[in-house]
């Protein structure tokens, strides 16, 4: 049964089309990931789903409620963890959770029980009455997850849940999400531009320039990239590329001052490759397929390159400032 269904969803900001005719559905109990570079339209899609933005066209519904026509029912069915923290730092952990319980009209007796329960899930019981000001980044995130789950949502949205956190905290957050999924019957919808995180999802939609360019399980997506990738740096990459094409009938892809060669059984191919080349090899690296390779294959770019690209940042700033202006 699908709990989120999106059909031909479009969102335009003046001249920029942030979401361009996106369709997908998410099954109940699934961990569904949105993967893509910054400015791909992931957050905009989430904002439409959680009723913060109105779509320019298309439909979206959560738990059977239309996101435009029945926003209150949709809001009651979802929990949200945003990119930036939305806790009140001048209040304590308990006060933040209690505020949330009142907004979602939770039963009074249930509230206290539920707050204690959620605080113990995210291991913040002993910080219950401490001001958020004194919390670390990871603690804030955990508390936000606790708050997002407080009202028993059917879908939990996580927009870049581990952005700006150190790897150790990222792992802890992921352990929480995995445990939670076993404890609470909940669907998780997340966006990320970390490849390693996307691997944890049941299904992934890869988004670029407002469109979904692939949607499948991580395993199936990785099958799009045939075999392993060899990264080769030589004295003369161009010449090496020509030689490889001649000897093995394989096309290579030049990027970042090296050559990417796709092949089956890379570990066996490398000795043959080096033996056949007349050019001095500087370094060779074998990689098993990752989602980044899938993205590279589909778009010709790597996700990390996009993070550094200036025009993407401009797009992102444009969307952000526009959002601010509209609020």
């Amino acid at each position, binding site marked *: 049964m699908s709990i989120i269904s999106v059909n031909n969803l479009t969102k335009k900001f003046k001249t920029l089309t942030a979401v361009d005719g996106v369709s997908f559905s998410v099954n109940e109990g699934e961990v569904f990931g949105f993967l893509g570079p910054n400015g791909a339209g992931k957050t905009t899609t989430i904002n439409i789903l959680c009723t913060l933005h109105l779509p320019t066209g298309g439909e979206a519904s959560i738990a059977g409620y239309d996101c435009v026509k029945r926003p209150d029912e949709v809001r009651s069915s979802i929990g*949200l963890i945003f990119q930036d*923290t*939305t806790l009140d730092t*001048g209040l304590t952990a308990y006060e933040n959770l209690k505020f949330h319980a009142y*907004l979602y009209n939770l039963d009074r007796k249930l509230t206290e029980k539920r707050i204690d329960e959620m605080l113990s899930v995210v291991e913040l019981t002993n910080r219950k009455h401490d001001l958020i000001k004194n919390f670390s980044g990871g603690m804030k995130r955990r508390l936000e997850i606790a708050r997002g789950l407080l009202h028993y949502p059917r879908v939990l949205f996580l927009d870049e849940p581990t952005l700006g956190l150190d790897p150790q905290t990222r792992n802890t957050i992921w352990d929480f999400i995995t445990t939670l999924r076993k404890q609470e019957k909940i669907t998780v919808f997340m966006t990320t531009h970390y490849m390693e995180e996307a691997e944890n999802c049941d299904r992934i939609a890869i988004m670029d320039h407002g469109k979904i360019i692939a949607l499948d399980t991580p395993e199936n997506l990785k099958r799009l990239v045939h075999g392993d990738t060899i990264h080769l740096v030589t004295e003369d990459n161009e010449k090496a590329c020509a030689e490889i094409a001649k000897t093995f009938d394989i096309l290579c892809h030049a990027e970042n001052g090296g050559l990417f060669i796709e092949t089956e059984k890379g570990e066996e191919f490398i000795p043959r490759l080096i033996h056949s080349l007349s050019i001095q090899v500087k370094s060779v690296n074998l990689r098993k397929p990752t989602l980044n390779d899938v993205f590279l294959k589909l778009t010709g770019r790597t996700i990390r390159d996009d993070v550094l690209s200036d025009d993407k940042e401009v797009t992102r700033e444009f969307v952000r400032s526009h959002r*601010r202006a509209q609020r």
Partner: protein
Amino acid sequence: MIQFRPIYVICLREFKKFFREKSRLLGTLARPVLWLFVVGNGMNSLIRPQVGFSYLQFIFPGMIGMTILFSSIFSSISIVWDREFGFMKEMLVAPISRVSIVIGKAISGTFISVAQAVIIMVLIPFLGIHLTVLQFIEVVLVSILVSFCITSLGILIAARLTSFDGFNIIMNFLVMPMLFLSGAMYPVTSLPTALRYLTHVNPLTYGIDAFKHVLLRNSAPPLGPEFPLAVDLLVVTILAFIMIILAALSFRQKE
């Protein structure tokens, strides 16, 4: 449309934060105290006591008005703060109406302003003003009305303000002119005609005029009240309604 539990909890949050942030309370109280005891005393020696009361006593109703003005605007500007630090999102994605958020902010802002106005009245014994219990209650009632009106005005502005950069503009082009054109510090009847018109569209003028009715009961213009009390109360009430409705409307808009 109007949900009471969210309104209650939004108010509770504002009160908690208000009493926790001692500097904010101190800041809003320091201003009228400074005016009363430093500027007031300075002017006192310049302006001879007229019609039975001193300059200090004359500006006291204005100081209550000033306290309310600053406190109310600051309370409503907290919306910009909430937005900047993300907390507004927590409210916007909750299953509550925008109207409830606006009313919650308006009520909490009103209570905080009235509380500060009451604290200012502690200074009364030092000013040589005799106040009856009835007068005290009247001041509180007028304070509620004026605070609600100005807080709603503040929310209306805050709903349109996209960042803190606009805050100084609001202070210099709205709050300060509102204060100077309200009759808080000097009688506005002697101002040039163009400025006189501005005093008439200033909600604070009517609020302070109502305070003068209560506190400077038996004095005639220019030092005493300018309009009849009924007019003052009516104007402030009508403006309060218009402001809160506009505030709620401006908050409802979304993309």
